[in-house]
Protein backbone atom coordinates (compact mmCIF):
# COMPACT_ATOMS: atom_id res chain seq x y z
CA UNK A 1 0.00 0.00 0.00
CA UNK A 2 1.49 3.40 -0.89
CA UNK A 3 2.03 6.05 1.75
CA UNK A 4 -0.79 8.30 0.64
CA UNK A 5 -3.61 5.77 0.56
CA UNK A 6 -2.22 4.30 3.76
CA UNK A 7 -2.54 7.65 5.52
CA UNK A 8 -5.99 8.20 3.96
CA UNK A 9 -7.13 4.84 5.37
CA UNK A 10 -5.69 5.73 8.74
CA UNK A 11 -7.53 9.07 8.67
CA UNK A 12 -10.80 7.33 7.88
CA UNK A 13 -10.24 4.88 10.71
CA UNK A 14 -9.48 7.73 13.15
CA UNK A 15 -12.56 9.63 12.00
CA UNK A 16 -14.79 6.57 12.49
CA UNK A 17 -13.24 5.92 15.88
CA UNK A 18 -13.71 9.50 17.07
CA UNK A 19 -17.30 9.64 15.77
CA UNK A 20 -18.15 6.39 17.55
CA UNK A 21 -16.53 7.62 20.76
CA UNK A 22 -18.49 10.91 20.66
CA UNK A 23 -21.71 8.90 20.41
CA UNK A 24 -20.67 7.04 23.56
CA UNK A 25 -19.69 10.28 25.33
CA UNK A 26 -23.25 11.47 24.73
CA UNK A 27 -24.47 8.58 26.90
CA UNK A 28 -22.13 9.56 29.73
CA UNK A 29 -19.40 7.01 29.00
CA UNK A 30 -16.21 8.51 30.44
CA UNK A 31 -14.03 5.78 28.87
CA UNK A 32 -15.13 7.06 25.44
CA UNK A 33 -13.81 10.53 26.28
CA UNK A 34 -10.47 8.91 27.01
CA UNK A 35 -10.58 7.26 23.58
CA UNK A 36 -10.99 10.71 21.98
CA UNK A 37 -8.22 12.03 24.21
CA UNK A 38 -5.82 9.25 23.24
CA UNK A 39 -6.60 9.71 19.56
CA UNK A 40 -6.43 13.51 19.36
CA UNK A 41 -5.15 15.32 22.46
CA UNK A 42 -1.50 15.21 21.41
CA UNK A 43 -2.20 16.78 18.05
CA UNK A 44 -4.60 19.25 19.63
CA UNK A 45 -1.89 20.43 22.03
CA UNK A 46 0.40 20.98 19.03
CA UNK A 47 -2.26 22.99 17.18
CA UNK A 48 -3.01 25.08 20.29
CA UNK A 49 0.68 25.63 20.93
CA UNK A 50 1.16 27.22 17.51
CA UNK A 51 -1.52 29.73 18.47
CA UNK A 52 -0.65 30.24 22.14
CA UNK A 53 3.12 29.64 22.04
CA UNK A 54 3.21 28.34 25.59
CA UNK A 55 2.81 24.70 26.57
CA UNK A 56 0.85 25.53 29.75
CA UNK A 57 -1.67 27.63 27.80
CA UNK A 58 -1.90 25.00 25.06
CA UNK A 59 -2.74 22.40 27.70
CA UNK A 60 -5.32 24.70 29.20
CA UNK A 61 -6.96 25.01 25.77
CA UNK A 62 -6.99 21.22 25.38
CA UNK A 63 -8.50 20.79 28.84
CA UNK A 64 -11.22 23.38 28.09
CA UNK A 65 -11.89 21.61 24.81
CA UNK A 66 -12.45 18.23 26.46
CA UNK A 67 -14.78 19.73 29.04
CA UNK A 68 -16.83 21.27 26.23
CA UNK A 69 -16.74 18.07 24.19
CA UNK A 70 -18.01 16.11 27.20
CA UNK A 71 -20.73 18.63 27.88
CA UNK A 72 -21.96 18.98 24.32
CA UNK A 73 -21.27 15.56 22.77
CA UNK A 74 -25.03 15.17 22.39
CA UNK A 75 -25.16 18.14 20.06
CA UNK A 76 -22.63 16.66 17.63
CA UNK A 77 -24.52 15.69 14.49
CA UNK A 78 -22.56 13.41 12.12
CA UNK A 79 -24.88 14.50 9.30
CA UNK A 80 -23.54 18.05 9.55
CA UNK A 81 -19.83 17.44 9.48
CA UNK A 82 -16.87 15.29 10.38
CA UNK A 83 -16.26 14.47 14.03
CA UNK A 84 -12.70 15.76 13.84
CA UNK A 85 -13.83 19.08 12.30
CA UNK A 86 -16.19 19.47 15.21
CA UNK A 87 -13.42 18.76 17.74
CA UNK A 88 -10.93 21.13 16.14
CA UNK A 89 -13.54 23.89 15.80
CA UNK A 90 -14.05 23.68 19.57
CA UNK A 91 -10.29 23.66 20.11
CA UNK A 92 -9.83 26.79 17.95
CA UNK A 93 -12.57 28.52 19.90
CA UNK A 94 -10.99 27.64 23.23
CA UNK A 95 -7.50 28.66 22.08
CA UNK A 96 -8.74 31.93 20.60
CA UNK A 97 -10.63 32.84 23.73
CA UNK A 98 -7.48 32.34 25.80
CA UNK A 99 -5.45 34.29 23.23
CA UNK A 100 -7.91 37.18 23.11
CA UNK A 101 -8.87 37.23 26.75
CA UNK A 102 -8.39 40.88 27.60
CA UNK A 103 -8.31 40.06 31.28
CA UNK A 104 -4.90 38.43 31.05
CA UNK A 105 -1.58 39.34 29.71
CA UNK A 106 -0.07 36.93 27.25
CA UNK A 107 3.29 38.10 26.00
CA UNK A 108 2.89 38.32 22.26
CA UNK A 109 5.90 36.42 21.09
CA UNK A 110 4.62 36.55 17.54
CA UNK A 111 5.43 40.24 17.31
CA UNK A 112 9.15 39.83 16.90
CA UNK A 113 8.83 37.31 14.11
CA UNK A 114 8.65 38.35 10.49
CA UNK A 115 5.50 37.43 8.60
CA UNK A 116 7.23 35.85 5.61
CA UNK A 117 9.30 33.12 7.35
CA UNK A 118 6.37 32.27 9.66
CA UNK A 119 4.11 31.83 6.65
CA UNK A 120 6.63 29.87 4.62
CA UNK A 121 7.47 27.47 7.43
CA UNK A 122 3.76 26.70 7.94
CA UNK A 123 3.31 26.17 4.19
CA UNK A 124 6.40 24.01 3.89
CA UNK A 125 4.89 21.49 6.31
CA UNK A 126 1.95 20.86 4.01
CA UNK A 127 2.41 17.89 1.69
CA UNK A 128 3.66 18.69 -1.84
CA UNK A 129 0.40 17.27 -3.17
CA UNK A 130 -1.79 19.54 -1.02
CA UNK A 131 -4.35 21.60 -2.95
CA UNK A 132 -4.37 24.11 -0.10
CA UNK A 133 -0.62 24.59 -0.47
CA UNK A 134 -0.78 24.89 -4.25
CA UNK A 135 -3.58 27.46 -4.09
CA UNK A 136 -1.92 29.50 -1.32
CA UNK A 137 1.33 29.55 -3.25
CA UNK A 138 -0.45 31.18 -6.18
CA UNK A 139 -1.25 34.22 -4.03
CA UNK A 140 0.98 37.24 -3.62
CA UNK A 141 3.17 36.65 -0.49
CA UNK A 142 1.46 39.21 1.76
CA UNK A 143 -2.02 38.06 0.78
CA UNK A 144 -0.95 34.50 1.46
CA UNK A 145 0.44 35.53 4.85
CA UNK A 146 -2.81 37.03 6.17
CA UNK A 147 -4.71 33.76 5.69
CA UNK A 148 -1.95 31.46 6.94
CA UNK A 149 -1.11 33.55 10.01
CA UNK A 150 -4.78 33.94 10.95
CA UNK A 151 -5.38 30.19 10.78
CA UNK A 152 -2.12 28.72 12.04
CA UNK A 153 -1.15 31.34 14.64
CA UNK A 154 -4.56 32.80 15.43
CA UNK A 155 -3.64 36.38 14.52
CA UNK A 156 -6.49 38.93 14.49
CA UNK A 157 -7.03 41.62 11.84
CA UNK A 158 -5.28 44.13 14.13
CA UNK A 159 -2.29 41.87 14.75
CA UNK A 160 -1.97 41.15 11.04
CA UNK A 161 -2.02 44.87 10.28
CA UNK A 162 0.72 45.46 12.87
CA UNK A 163 2.89 42.65 11.61
CA UNK A 164 2.58 43.58 7.95
CA UNK A 165 2.76 47.33 8.60
CA UNK A 166 -0.40 48.15 6.66
CA UNK A 167 -3.72 49.78 7.67
CA UNK A 168 -6.51 47.65 9.13
CA UNK A 169 -8.76 48.26 6.10
CA UNK A 170 -6.07 46.94 3.78
CA UNK A 171 -5.71 43.75 5.82
CA UNK A 172 -9.47 43.19 5.78
CA UNK A 173 -9.64 43.55 2.03
CA UNK A 174 -6.57 41.32 1.50
CA UNK A 175 -8.19 38.62 3.63
CA UNK A 176 -11.44 38.77 1.67
CA UNK A 177 -9.73 38.72 -1.72
CA UNK A 178 -7.42 35.90 -0.71
CA UNK A 179 -10.38 33.85 0.46
CA UNK A 180 -12.20 34.43 -2.83
CA UNK A 181 -9.12 33.30 -4.79
CA UNK A 182 -8.74 30.25 -2.55
CA UNK A 183 -12.38 29.33 -2.99
CA UNK A 184 -12.03 29.53 -6.78
CA UNK A 185 -8.76 27.63 -6.80
CA UNK A 186 -9.82 24.83 -4.44
CA UNK A 187 -13.33 24.50 -5.85
Amino acid sequence: MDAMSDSATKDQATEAQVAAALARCATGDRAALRVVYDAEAGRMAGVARRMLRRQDLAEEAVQDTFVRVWRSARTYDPGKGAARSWLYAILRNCALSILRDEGRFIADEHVAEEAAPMTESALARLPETSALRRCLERLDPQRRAVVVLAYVHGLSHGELAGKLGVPLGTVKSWVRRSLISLQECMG
Partner: protein
Amino acid sequence: MNAPDRNEQTIAAEYVLGLLDHAENADMERRLSSDPALAREVESWRLRFSEFDDTTAPRPAGDELWRRVETAVADPAVRAETAAPAFTRFWNSLAVLRATAMGASLAALVLAVGLGFAIHAARQQPIMIAVLLDGDRAGAVVHTFADGRHVLLPLTSIDVPRGRALQVWTLPSRERGPVSVGLMNQARTLELSLADLPATRPDQLFEITLEPETGSPTGRPTGPILFKGNTASAL
Protein backbone atom coordinates in the same frame (compact mmCIF):
# COMPACT_ATOMS: atom_id res chain seq x y z
CA MET B 1 -32.71 27.89 0.49
CA ASN B 2 -30.34 29.62 -1.94
CA ALA B 3 -26.70 28.59 -2.18
CA PRO B 4 -24.49 31.03 -0.26
CA ASP B 5 -23.24 33.85 -2.50
CA ARG B 6 -19.62 34.93 -2.61
CA ASN B 7 -19.98 37.30 0.33
CA GLU B 8 -21.52 34.54 2.44
CA GLN B 9 -18.72 32.16 1.47
CA THR B 10 -16.14 34.71 2.56
CA ILE B 11 -17.88 35.31 5.88
CA ALA B 12 -18.02 31.55 6.46
CA ALA B 13 -14.26 31.39 5.88
CA GLU B 14 -13.58 34.37 8.15
CA TYR B 15 -15.66 32.66 10.82
CA VAL B 16 -13.49 29.53 10.52
CA LEU B 17 -10.31 31.63 10.66
CA GLY B 18 -11.59 33.36 13.81
CA LEU B 19 -11.54 36.82 12.24
CA LEU B 20 -15.13 37.91 12.90
CA ASP B 21 -15.77 40.33 15.72
CA HIS B 22 -17.99 39.42 18.69
CA ALA B 23 -21.29 40.53 17.18
CA GLU B 24 -20.62 38.99 13.77
CA ASN B 25 -19.53 35.76 15.42
CA ALA B 26 -22.65 35.53 17.56
CA ASP B 27 -24.81 36.27 14.51
CA MET B 28 -23.04 33.52 12.57
CA GLU B 29 -23.58 30.97 15.32
CA ARG B 30 -27.25 31.80 15.48
CA ARG B 31 -27.66 31.40 11.72
CA LEU B 32 -25.67 28.16 11.51
CA SER B 33 -28.27 26.17 13.40
CA SER B 34 -31.00 27.08 10.92
CA ASP B 35 -29.16 27.47 7.62
CA PRO B 36 -27.83 24.12 6.34
CA ALA B 37 -26.24 25.67 3.22
CA LEU B 38 -24.21 28.04 5.38
CA ALA B 39 -23.29 25.18 7.73
CA ARG B 40 -22.01 23.19 4.74
CA GLU B 41 -19.95 26.18 3.64
CA VAL B 42 -18.38 26.42 7.10
CA GLU B 43 -17.66 22.69 7.16
CA SER B 44 -15.99 22.81 3.76
CA TRP B 45 -13.68 25.63 4.91
CA ARG B 46 -12.89 23.71 8.09
CA LEU B 47 -11.91 20.69 6.03
CA ARG B 48 -9.77 22.80 3.69
CA PHE B 49 -7.82 24.43 6.51
CA SER B 50 -7.63 21.24 8.60
CA GLU B 51 -4.61 20.26 6.49
CA PHE B 52 -2.63 22.69 8.63
CA ASP B 53 -3.75 20.91 11.82
CA ASP B 54 -2.62 17.60 10.39
CA THR B 55 0.91 18.93 9.95
CA THR B 56 1.39 19.11 13.72
CA ALA B 57 3.58 16.23 14.87
CA PRO B 58 1.32 14.17 17.14
CA ARG B 59 2.88 13.78 20.55
CA PRO B 60 1.27 11.87 23.40
CA ALA B 61 -0.59 14.38 25.57
CA GLY B 62 0.14 12.43 28.71
CA ASP B 63 -1.73 11.20 31.76
CA GLU B 64 -1.18 14.36 33.81
CA LEU B 65 -3.36 16.43 31.48
CA TRP B 66 -5.91 13.61 31.31
CA ARG B 67 -6.22 13.67 35.10
CA ARG B 68 -7.00 17.39 34.91
CA VAL B 69 -9.64 16.72 32.25
CA GLU B 70 -11.14 13.95 34.40
CA THR B 71 -11.28 16.19 37.45
CA ALA B 72 -12.90 18.95 35.41
CA VAL B 73 -15.59 16.73 33.90
CA ALA B 74 -16.30 15.15 37.29
CA ASP B 75 -17.31 18.61 38.54
CA PRO B 76 -21.07 18.40 39.28
CA ALA B 77 -21.71 21.60 37.32
CA VAL B 78 -20.33 19.89 34.25
CA ARG B 79 -21.80 16.49 34.90
CA ALA B 80 -25.29 17.89 35.30
CA GLU B 81 -25.42 18.83 31.65
CA THR B 82 -24.33 15.44 30.41
CA ALA B 83 -26.95 12.91 29.38
CA ALA B 84 -26.85 10.14 31.95
CA PRO B 85 -27.31 6.64 30.58
CA ALA B 86 -30.96 5.67 30.42
CA PHE B 87 -30.88 3.37 33.41
CA THR B 88 -29.00 5.77 35.62
CA ARG B 89 -31.61 8.36 34.84
CA PHE B 90 -34.31 5.81 35.51
CA TRP B 91 -32.93 4.94 38.92
CA ASN B 92 -32.19 8.55 39.69
CA SER B 93 -35.79 9.37 39.03
CA LEU B 94 -36.83 6.60 41.42
CA ALA B 95 -34.49 7.97 44.06
CA VAL B 96 -35.97 11.42 43.66
CA LEU B 97 -39.37 9.83 43.90
CA ARG B 98 -38.63 8.11 47.19
CA ALA B 99 -37.01 11.17 48.65
CA THR B 100 -39.85 13.50 47.92
CA ALA B 101 -42.72 11.04 48.22
CA MET B 102 -44.55 12.32 45.21
CA GLY B 103 -48.12 11.30 44.42
CA ALA B 104 -49.01 8.09 42.62
CA SER B 105 -50.00 9.68 39.34
CA LEU B 106 -46.76 11.56 39.14
CA ALA B 107 -44.94 8.33 40.00
CA ALA B 108 -46.57 6.64 37.03
CA LEU B 109 -45.49 9.48 34.80
CA VAL B 110 -41.90 9.30 36.02
CA LEU B 111 -41.88 5.54 35.50
CA ALA B 112 -43.22 5.95 32.00
CA VAL B 113 -40.54 8.52 31.17
CA GLY B 114 -37.87 6.23 32.62
CA LEU B 115 -39.15 3.31 30.55
CA GLY B 116 -39.19 5.51 27.47
CA PHE B 117 -35.50 6.20 27.92
CA ALA B 118 -34.80 2.53 28.54
CA ILE B 119 -36.59 1.53 25.35
CA HIS B 120 -34.73 4.19 23.39
CA ALA B 121 -31.42 2.84 24.72
CA ALA B 122 -32.45 -0.71 23.84
CA ARG B 123 -32.85 0.21 20.17
CA GLN B 124 -29.16 0.95 20.09
CA GLN B 125 -28.22 -2.23 21.88
CA PRO B 126 -26.30 -4.86 19.93
CA ILE B 127 -28.16 -7.87 18.54
CA MET B 128 -25.14 -10.12 19.11
CA ILE B 129 -22.17 -9.96 21.43
CA ALA B 130 -18.89 -11.86 21.41
CA VAL B 131 -16.79 -11.67 24.55
CA LEU B 132 -13.15 -12.28 23.63
CA LEU B 133 -11.33 -14.15 26.36
CA ASP B 134 -7.87 -15.25 27.32
CA GLY B 135 -8.65 -18.19 29.59
CA ASP B 136 -11.15 -16.58 31.95
CA ARG B 137 -9.89 -13.01 31.44
CA ALA B 138 -12.12 -10.89 29.18
CA GLY B 139 -10.07 -8.71 26.81
CA ALA B 140 -12.69 -7.16 24.56
CA VAL B 141 -16.26 -7.44 23.33
CA VAL B 142 -17.49 -7.29 19.76
CA HIS B 143 -20.96 -5.78 19.40
CA THR B 144 -22.97 -6.59 16.27
CA PHE B 145 -25.71 -4.05 15.57
CA ALA B 146 -28.91 -4.53 13.59
CA ASP B 147 -27.62 -2.23 10.83
CA GLY B 148 -24.65 -4.56 10.22
CA ARG B 149 -22.06 -2.49 12.09
CA HIS B 150 -19.55 -4.29 14.29
CA VAL B 151 -17.74 -2.42 17.04
CA LEU B 152 -14.94 -3.81 19.17
CA LEU B 153 -14.64 -2.37 22.67
CA PRO B 154 -11.54 -3.17 24.71
CA LEU B 155 -12.17 -4.20 28.31
CA THR B 156 -8.59 -4.21 29.45
CA SER B 157 -5.34 -2.59 28.42
CA ILE B 158 -3.22 -4.78 26.16
CA ASP B 159 0.56 -4.42 25.98
CA VAL B 160 1.60 -3.99 22.38
CA PRO B 161 5.37 -4.13 21.87
CA ARG B 162 6.91 -1.46 19.64
CA GLY B 163 6.64 -2.33 15.96
CA ARG B 164 3.69 -4.66 16.52
CA ALA B 165 -0.07 -4.27 16.22
CA LEU B 166 -3.29 -5.93 17.29
CA GLN B 167 -5.17 -7.52 14.40
CA VAL B 168 -8.80 -8.59 14.66
CA TRP B 169 -10.05 -11.61 12.72
CA THR B 170 -13.29 -13.42 12.19
CA LEU B 171 -14.10 -16.84 10.79
CA PRO B 172 -17.14 -16.42 8.52
CA SER B 173 -16.88 -20.10 7.48
CA ARG B 174 -14.40 -22.94 7.80
CA GLU B 175 -13.98 -23.06 3.99
CA ARG B 176 -13.09 -19.39 3.75
CA GLY B 177 -10.82 -19.34 6.77
CA PRO B 178 -9.99 -16.33 8.99
CA VAL B 179 -10.52 -12.86 7.50
CA SER B 180 -8.88 -9.69 8.86
CA VAL B 181 -11.49 -7.15 9.98
CA GLY B 182 -9.38 -4.57 11.81
CA LEU B 183 -5.88 -3.47 12.79
CA MET B 184 -4.85 -1.14 15.62
CA ASN B 185 -1.62 -0.24 17.35
CA GLN B 186 -3.21 -0.13 20.79
CA ALA B 187 -6.37 -1.42 22.45
CA ARG B 188 -9.12 1.02 21.57
CA THR B 189 -12.69 1.12 20.33
CA LEU B 190 -12.64 0.05 16.72
CA GLU B 191 -15.32 -0.23 14.09
CA LEU B 192 -14.66 -3.53 12.31
CA SER B 193 -14.92 -3.96 8.55
CA LEU B 194 -17.29 -6.83 7.88
CA ALA B 195 -19.27 -5.13 5.10
CA ASP B 196 -17.93 -7.53 2.44
CA LEU B 197 -18.65 -10.65 4.48
CA PRO B 198 -21.85 -12.69 4.83
CA ALA B 199 -24.08 -11.61 7.74
CA THR B 200 -22.57 -12.55 11.09
CA ARG B 201 -24.05 -15.76 12.57
CA PRO B 202 -24.41 -16.81 16.17
CA ASP B 203 -21.35 -18.78 17.32
CA GLN B 204 -19.04 -17.05 14.81
CA LEU B 205 -15.43 -16.82 15.98
CA PHE B 206 -13.66 -13.49 16.54
CA GLU B 207 -10.06 -13.28 17.72
CA ILE B 208 -7.26 -10.79 18.30
CA THR B 209 -3.69 -11.74 17.39
CA LEU B 210 -0.39 -9.94 17.79
CA GLU B 211 1.03 -9.16 14.35
CA PRO B 212 3.64 -6.93 12.70
CA GLU B 213 2.81 -3.22 12.73
CA THR B 214 1.34 -3.22 9.21
CA GLY B 215 -0.69 -6.38 9.76
CA SER B 216 -0.05 -10.02 9.05
CA PRO B 217 2.09 -10.33 5.89
CA THR B 218 0.28 -13.51 4.80
CA GLY B 219 -3.32 -12.35 5.22
CA ARG B 220 -3.78 -15.10 7.83
CA PRO B 221 -3.04 -14.89 11.57
CA THR B 222 0.66 -15.50 12.17
CA GLY B 223 1.17 -14.29 15.73
CA PRO B 224 -0.09 -15.53 19.09
CA ILE B 225 -3.84 -15.41 19.77
CA LEU B 226 -4.38 -12.94 22.63
CA PHE B 227 -8.15 -13.16 22.99
CA LYS B 228 -10.90 -15.09 21.26
CA GLY B 229 -14.61 -15.70 21.59
CA ASN B 230 -17.80 -16.56 19.73
CA THR B 231 -20.87 -14.48 19.06
CA ALA B 232 -24.03 -15.08 21.03
CA SER B 233 -27.40 -13.42 20.55
CA ALA B 234 -27.98 -10.61 23.03
CA LEU B 235 -30.95 -11.13 25.33
